[in-house]
């Protein structure tokens, strides 16, 4: 990226030589600062328990943020991720608590994972067709499901909290592999796959090409529509998965709260991780980094007795700072 310092106004506090370095590695520097601060200040921070809690909470944000990163890379945005989480999260207990699910537990669990994911993919397909074929702006196209998706979930469950006790299903959210939460490993596997897709496949190339210059991508004969629909479907299925994990963690599905405000966390994580809103960049591991930073800030403030509401303001400032730094880098 550009290392010119012209046109920058407010990097006053940082020495000139540090400017480019900070801009290129801002996320990592921020992470290091937060970690050092926590080690010095937060009581009982350096413990396995802390790591465990944070990983199990950050995984859902990271998974959704990776899907959001792909959508943003095409120059789009997906506001419906939280609603899709609620929908898939509401479907799962409905299925394995049904008569069929009780009669055939193994099949029931399989269906309770597959069917919600298919529903989530269908939601993504809906968004994608609106954006790619009908040329509706992404904010508006995904606004439809943002508004009605959670409503559908609440209609399905009648607005009731569904509680259950099902160790097999709960493994998604409470299982451990090598002592660390299952969903953390799942997030890493997804990241590896998406990283491979973005760097080694034509699909990935086209995602970036569309974000860079959609018209050019189309004129050069690229399958622009299919690729666009594809990213919304990927974002949909990842949101659906995150919804299942949240339900598994809680052993309960609350359609009103599952994934509430997740779109903001996911967009923030993607942007902090280095995704450009104009499209053309898809830092998959950046999305994880962004999610970790947002989670750690939340944790740091809570662990030090700062109220939740102040944490919101902190999150706002992080987003502004991240985009401002990014903006400067682009110029």
């Amino acid at each position, binding site marked *: 990226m550009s290392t010119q310092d012209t046109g920058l106004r407010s990097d006053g506090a940082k020495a000139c030589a540090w400017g480019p370095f900070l801009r290129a590695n801002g996320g990592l520097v921020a992470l290091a600062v937060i970690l050092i601060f926590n080690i010095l200040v937060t009581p009982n921070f350096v413990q396995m328990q802390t790591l465990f809690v944070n990983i199990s909470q950050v995984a859902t944000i990271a998974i959704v943020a990776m899907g959001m990163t792909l959508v943003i890379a095409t120059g789009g*945005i997906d*506001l419906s991720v939280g609603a899709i989480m609620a929908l898939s999260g509401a479907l799962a207990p409905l299925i394995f608590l049904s008569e069929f699910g009780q009669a055939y537990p193994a099949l029931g669990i399989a269906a309770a994972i597959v069917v919600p994911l298919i529903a989530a993919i269908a939601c993504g397909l809906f968004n994608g067709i*609106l954006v790619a074929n*009908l*040329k*509706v*702006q992404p*904010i*508006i*196209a995904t*606004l*439809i*499901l*943002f*508004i*009605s*998706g*959670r*409503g*559908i979930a*609440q*209609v399905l469950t*009648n*607005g009731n909290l569904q509680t259950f006790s099902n160790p097999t299903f709960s493994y998604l959210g409470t299982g451990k592999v090598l002592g660390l939460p299952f969903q953390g490993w799942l997030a890493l596997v997804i990241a590896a796959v998406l990283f491979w897709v973005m760097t080694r496949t034509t699909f990935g190339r086209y995602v970036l090409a569309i974000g860079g210059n959609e018209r050019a991508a189309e004129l050069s004969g690229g399958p622009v529509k299919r690729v666009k629909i594809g990213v919304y479907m990927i974002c949909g299925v990842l949101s659906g998965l995150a919804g299942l994990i949240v339900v598994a963690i809680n052993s309960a599905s609350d359609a009103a709260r599952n994934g509430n405000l997740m779109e*903001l966390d996911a*967009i*923030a994580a993607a*942007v902090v991780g280095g995704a450009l*809103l*104009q499209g053309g960049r898809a830092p998959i591991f950046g999305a994880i980094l962004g999610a970790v930073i947002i989670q750690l800030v939340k944790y740091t403030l809570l662990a030090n007795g700062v*109220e*939740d*509401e*102040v*944490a*919101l*303001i902190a*999150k*706002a*400032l992080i*987003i*502004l700072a991240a*985009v*401002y730094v990014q*903006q400067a880098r682009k110029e």
Partner: protein
Amino acid sequence: MLDTDAFDLRKYLSRNPQSVAVWVALVALILFGLLRYDNFGGAYNITSFLNYNSMFIVISVGMCFVIMTGGIDLSVGSVAAFTSVIAAYLSPYGIEIALPGAVLAGIGFGAFNAFCIIAMRIPPFIATLATMLGAKGGALVISGAQTISVDWGSNFTKMGMEKALNILPWSIVVVGVVVVLLWFVLEKTTLGRTVLAIGGGADASVLMGLKVNRATAFVYMLSGGCAGLAGVILASGFGAGQPLEGIGWELSAIASVVVGGTLLTGGLGSVTATVAGALLLGLVFNILNFENGRGTISFSAYWQMVIRGVFLFAVILFQARVMSGRTERKVRT
């Protein structure tokens, strides 16, 4: 977009094809309601409907200006929650202090948005997203996460609960005046033209020597101020400052604007059609309530969101077809 001649329905519709849908749907829904329910056209339903929806109308109109410049303001719901708390704190001094105070607070948030967007060059989506989080946090901090009861002794609650000349609630009168003023600004002033020009092409507008930054700052401060007014109506209508309210208002407002036919890419828009859009979305709720009241079917509150979404979907489909027809015609001539 600027009709200078007298109002002519046919001319209006031919110039605003994207706004046809909302008027047709609104009239159809009102007729449906009048024919089907006894009390639908009654004074009580009309005033309570307008009273509740005046908040959404004023926010939607502010949003309409932002969207016409090609921007977006996600902070309006949180700002309304914040200003409702401010209004509640100021209520002992009467409406003449509380109203301007809360509106000023809203304008302050709008100014912050404008600063981030113009001076820091942060995209509107992100800048107003941050303000949304910040204002929500701020509202919870200053209120201690409690609803703040207003002073019932002062004249503050008149605004939301009493009627001017015993006909219309004050909130509707105030919002009506704001809407007429803003209609005038958009259709008849240089500022209004500049707003539309920015949406048509910001760079071209700068090259034409239009005061783009000033107009951009204006629309965000206007949107903030409108959210502030909505906050006052909220506090005065419900008797309390409500830091937890306003969730999803920005999206309802965007939906109203879009349903009204304003293009999200900017450059085109109408204050009246936006009001119609807000009324239409509100009417969906109203009619569902009546339908539930008849007892033949029972739609839970959750259905309302689903039906709203379907409505939005239908209007967007319609718009997509009308607009694609329009651009094709343009190409040919």
